[in-house]
């Protein structure tokens, strides 16, 4: 109420208020109250409008105070106000509800139907019943009233009291005005000019006439506190004076005016970042047509991982400069460069700038190292299976070959004629011609048997001597019994006619046979990982066999006799052991550094060994030098199957699954200080690859610089 009053107070003048009071006479009391409020407020508004923005209580106090200092004109009102204020005090607690305006009936805001059946319609302030008019007006009365009473239109029925009220002219006017949305007060000017108190103009007089407060004369304590705090902060250096605006950026001077040449160690160490590579034709907006991507290249580019791409962008062609769009990766590229600059470790990389020709070693020309085999001159055909092993007679006239088709063939070397075929009934694993030139015998290994053949391809005397050698021990005692597992037996009947003389039955499958240089001893290999029975040494003249090793040292691949001294070479999977047969002890163990040895050959001098392995390597050992290979040769692309030394010439050959035979020149000097000279001189090709196998065995002619090779394609080739 008060607030509302305050608001209206600003707008209303006093007369208006009085009139209003007159108008609503039935609303007398509250209207009076209103008026009082209004009065005081209006006074307030006129004289202490400035203070208005403060709190309400202050306002009232202020107005009270001001009252005394007002002009004479206001004295009348003052008195009146005194009375009114008394009245106000009386009225104040008469009823609590502020929203109730009509208080002659105290029933409150209820539907009046509830009193339909009662004689009264409520209670007045004193608690007395308010009775309904004695006779209710019915429709007819109403109609008559309407017809007769000229005041009917301005009569209002008050439901609360049940009486009719006739509105006065002023009241009607007021209703009309309110209906039109105008102010109730006729004299109120809505468009009064505003008095600007708060303007930029400094007025001569103060807005209020109030004397200055005391507090405006004495220094403020709170302010003092604040200031002292600031002073303290400044003293302590917490607050700094405003920085002088220095535009350091963008002011440049000659930084290198005194260029001192004192270069720090840092600068010596400093690696400048490499510059960005300059763009090529690819990057042009209009490149030559060959630099544009084809569809396939484009597809490939899109498939590739961004890191793998050769070009980080797709070359494009635009017909004019106008059509070139922005490059979307530009900022990205710059950013990448930034990252490179501060995140990449830098390192000085020495670029090898060598002429590749200089890397090739200077070797003696093969021409100067002649003779060596150069061309394939003869092919020996006849076998139907792969030829596993070949051997040349010590005279160099005959060649024996054993094949998987179960036959051993004898060829004349010069004419490539097959002189003799012996069916042995099993895949021949190895053949070896007796190196003794005074006898003519051939050892053949197949399955678990070693056969001794006398091919009778020599002088009669030689044949006779070999026969004698075989039959010599027949007269003697039977030593075979001494070693139960090996059985010596004579060939009979048909086999005898074919030249078969002796059968040495082994307990297991034999893979290799080797003769001793003298021709009396014969070694056979039965690779088996589980027992120590892997190698047998047979003595032909006494028909005796013995197992030299009592312990298993690994899977034996091949064995060989030393050409001169009583040494015995045994190659297991990864190493070669050399045994002294006289002292019966191991003298040396050679480490080959290869995974699986396939073949081995001993130099006729006896001081060098070559060994081929299935991992494509050929290692040359100098026995006097070390147990490690003197040289590893990786000439072949596939597994090395066979190696061989020439008896007279400084040549050795290796055969491999890639179908080639490589002949190398390997000079061994008598001078112990000089290392052997190894020069590859010729790559010989002549065999056709079958079943992924190429050349299986290789051997040299005993006197000529010729090399024989047997292949998986069932042929034997002679290279001269």
């Amino acid at each position, binding site marked *: 109420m008060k607030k509302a009053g305050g608001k209206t107070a600003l707008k209303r003048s006093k007369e208006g208020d009085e009139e209003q009071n007159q108008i609503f006479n039935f609303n007398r009391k509250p209207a009076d109250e209103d008026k009082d409020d209004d009065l005081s407020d209006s006074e307030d508004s006129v004289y202490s409008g400035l203070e208005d923005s403060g709190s309400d209580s202050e306002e009232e106090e202020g107005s009270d105070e001001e009252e005394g200092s007002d002009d004479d004109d206001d004295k009348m009102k003052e008195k009146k106000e005194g009375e009114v204020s008394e009245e106000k005090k009386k009225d104040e607690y008469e009823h609590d509800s502020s929203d109730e305006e009509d208080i002659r009936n105290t029933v409150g805001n209820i539907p009046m139907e509830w009193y339909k059946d009662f004689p009264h319609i409520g209670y007045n302030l004193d608690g007395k019943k308010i009775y309904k008019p004695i006779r209710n007006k019915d429709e007819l009365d109403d109609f008559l009233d309407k017809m007769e009473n000229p005041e009917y239109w301005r009569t209002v029925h008050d439901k609360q009291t049940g009486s009719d009220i006739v509105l006065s002219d002023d009241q009607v006017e007021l209703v009309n005005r309110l209906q039109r949305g105008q102010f109730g007060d006729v004299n109120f000017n809505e468009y009064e000019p505003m008095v600007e108190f708060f303007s930029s103009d400094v007025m001569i007089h103060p807005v209020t006439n109030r004397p200055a407060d005391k507090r405006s004369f004495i220094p403020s304590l709170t302010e003092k506190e604040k200031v002292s705090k600031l002073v303290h902060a400044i003293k302590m250096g917490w*607050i700094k004076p*405003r920085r002088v605006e220095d535009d*350091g950026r963008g002011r*440049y*001077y*000659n*930084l*290198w005016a005194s260029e001192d040449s*004192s270069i720090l160690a*840092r600068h010596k160490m*400093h690696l400048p*970042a490499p510059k*960005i590579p*300059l*763009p*090529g*034709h690819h*990057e*042009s*907006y*209009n*490149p*030559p047509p*060959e*630099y544009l991507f084809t569809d396939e290249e484009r597809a490939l580019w899109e498939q590739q991982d961004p890191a793998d791409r050769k070009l980080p*962008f797709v070359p494009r062609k635009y017909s*004019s*400069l*106008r059509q070139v*769009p*922005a*490059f979307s*990766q*530009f900022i990205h*590229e*710059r*950013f990448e*460069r*930034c*990252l490179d*600059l*501060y*995140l990449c*470790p830098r390192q000085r990389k020495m670029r*090898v700038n060598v002429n*590749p020709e200089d*890397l*090739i*070693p*200077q*070797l003696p020309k*093969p*021409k100067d190292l002649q003779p060596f085999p150069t*061309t394939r001159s003869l092919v020996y055909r006849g076998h139907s299976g792969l030829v596993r092993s070949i051997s040349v007679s010590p005279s160099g006239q005959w060649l024996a070959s054993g094949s998987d088709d179960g036959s051993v063939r004898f060829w004349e070397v010069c004419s490539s004629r097959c002189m003799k075929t012996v069916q042995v009934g099993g895949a021949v694993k190895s053949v070896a011609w007796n190196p003794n030139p005074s006898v003519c015998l051939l050892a053949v290994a197949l399955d678990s048997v070693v056969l001794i053949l006398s091919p009778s391809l020599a002088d009669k005397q030689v044949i006779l001597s070999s026969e004698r050698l075989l039959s010599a021990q027949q007269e003697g005692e039977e030593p075979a019994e001494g070693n139960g597992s090996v059985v010596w037996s004579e060939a009979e009947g048909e086999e005898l006619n074919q030249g078969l003389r002796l059968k040495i039955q082994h307990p297991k499958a034999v893979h290799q046979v080797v003769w001793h240089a003298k021709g009396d001893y014969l070694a056979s290999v039965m690779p088996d990982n589980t027992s120590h029975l892997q190698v047998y040494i047979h003595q032909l003249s006494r028909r005796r066999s013995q197992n030299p090793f009592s312990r298993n040292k690994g899977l034996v691949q091949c064995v060989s006799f030393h050409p001169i001294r009583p040494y015995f070479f045994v190659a297991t999977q990864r190493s070669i052991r050399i045994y002294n047969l006289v002292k019966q002890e191991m003298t040396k163990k050679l480490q080959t550094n290869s995974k699986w040895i396939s073949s081995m050959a001993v130099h006729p001098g006896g001081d060098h060994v070559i060994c081929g392995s299935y991992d494509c390597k050929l290692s040359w050992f100098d026995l006097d030098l070390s147990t490690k290979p003197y040289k590893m*040769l990786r000439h072949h692309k596939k597994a090395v199957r066979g190696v061989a030394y020439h008896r007279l010439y400084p040549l050795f050959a290796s055969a491999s699954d890639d179908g080639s035979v490589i002949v190398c020149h390997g000079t061994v000097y008598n001078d112990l200080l000089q290392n052997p000279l190894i020069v*590859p*001189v*010729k*790559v010989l*090709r002549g065999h056709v690859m079958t079943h992924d196998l190429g050349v299986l065995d290789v051997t040299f002619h005993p006197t000529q610089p010729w090399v024989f090779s047997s292949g998986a394609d069932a042929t034997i080739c002679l290279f001269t």
Partner: protein
Amino acid sequence: MGGLQKKKFERGSATNYITRNRARKKLQLSLPDFRRLCILKGIYPHEPKHKKKVNKGSTAPRTFYLLKDIRFLLHEPIVGKFREYKIFVRKLKKAYGKTEWSAVERVRENKPTYKLDHIIKERYPTFIDALRDIDDALCMCFLFSTFARTGKCHVQTIQLCRRLTVEWMNYVIASRSLRKVFLSIKGIYYQAEVMGQLITWVVPYQFSHDHPVDVDYRVMATFTELYTTLLGFVSFRLYSSLNLVYPPKLDSNGESEPKEESEDDYAMNSESYLEKLSALSASLARVVSSADEEEAQLDQFPSEGEDMEKMEAREKELKQQEAQKKLFEGLKFYLNREVPRESLAFVIRCFGGQVSWDKSVCIGSTYDVTDETITHQIIDRPSVGKQYINRYYIQPQWLYDCVNAKILLPVEDYFLGVTLPPHLSPFVEEKEGDYVPPEKLKMMALQRGEKPGNEQEEDEEEEEEEGEQEEEEEQEEDDNGDEEDDEEEVAEEKNLKKMEEQRSQGKSLHVKVTPGKLKVENKARLEQEEKAEEKRLAIMMMKKKEKYLYDKIMFGKKRKVREANKLAAKRKTHDDAEKAKKKKARK
């Protein structure tokens, strides 16, 4: 034995390196601050030789810095500034949190700043060092100057970058040191030779950028901070070396400009002045106003033999360079509104040409379209309404190609609406065996002063010849290859086989003697073969390491040849297709 047991990782390489995190802790910096410091000071990580040793036995991937570098950073005054800044941010946050606006204002006013002058001096002890490293600075400034002035980075930075780039371009114009220009799909590459250093930079095309989200702009901004400082000092030095006023002022000979600004005031502070400068149409004011500076003549020294030849070559080169500098002298260009004004104006002015444009495009235009003395109008649209007879209407590529060719190329290929010849990169220098596009060959012929055949047919013939030559070359190359040899061997083997078969057949059937055929032996060929075989055998005997190296080199060589062949083949098929099209069109 006595003596203390040696502990692991207390000596040797383990003590020379420090991981990033430990370095950060030692410097008491946050990671972003450490990053900034590394960028500003040019510290980069190092890859230790034995990572496991340095990493104290662990193989976790870590970044290592040299301990020396980090110690060097310890004394950097800027580290203190970083800490101050951190405190400043904390204070500001606190004030904000308490909504003490006066405190916020006060803190703001005391924002710590730092200078990078000493770092520049330290990183680049001599001017040439700085010049050598300016490529990246230029690229970055040119990029930042094209950024919109909202978001991403401070407006002041962008303005500063713009100012510095304009200064740089003006210097290049004044010194006429531009050498090469290349229009790529990424942007325009420029190469200038300043004090003997080749400086290359790339300017993006004038479009608004769509900023990628995965780019850390803080890193870029830090680099830019460093680069702007560097570029500013370099520009100052360069300007003073040419006796130009720095900050640059326009030459006020023609127009008397009211000098309101005091000497101290930086000319660039007014936006319009920067605009005028960036128009690149007027020359700059000099400290000592001088007419044409006399070029230092190369003195003649008495010399003999090779020196003489070298001298002559150098002199020739110098002469050529001089000629290039005056390439567009006496020509008057007019730029249509659709061509990239700044780039073209820059290039034209670098080579002594006069240039103007429409007044509405940019300030600084000096003459109008209607000027009768204009010799070339640069235009990049299919047709134009009104044409003047006494000028060439050419496409912008002509200018760039001329610059790269160092001569004025014939204008016919670049006329209005004509299909342009390919634009080649001037940075590619073909070595022997590389693929050279035919356009480049043509250009080289022009440079030598040969007149190209005007008639189309001749051209075609030439092309055909070229094609044949290429084929021949290819054949030769193949001959050189190993495969050919193998083939020959195979052939020989076949022959042998045949003979053998005949023999064996003879055995099985009946002996027959057929007259032998004379086998003609090509001596040279045989010798070659022998040599090839010798080489192959020698290669077999190479050591493993050398073999690997050799194989690698040979592989690289072969790949190069293969790529060149591929390009040539592609070109040939393209030309053939073109020819076929032409023929069809004729019919």
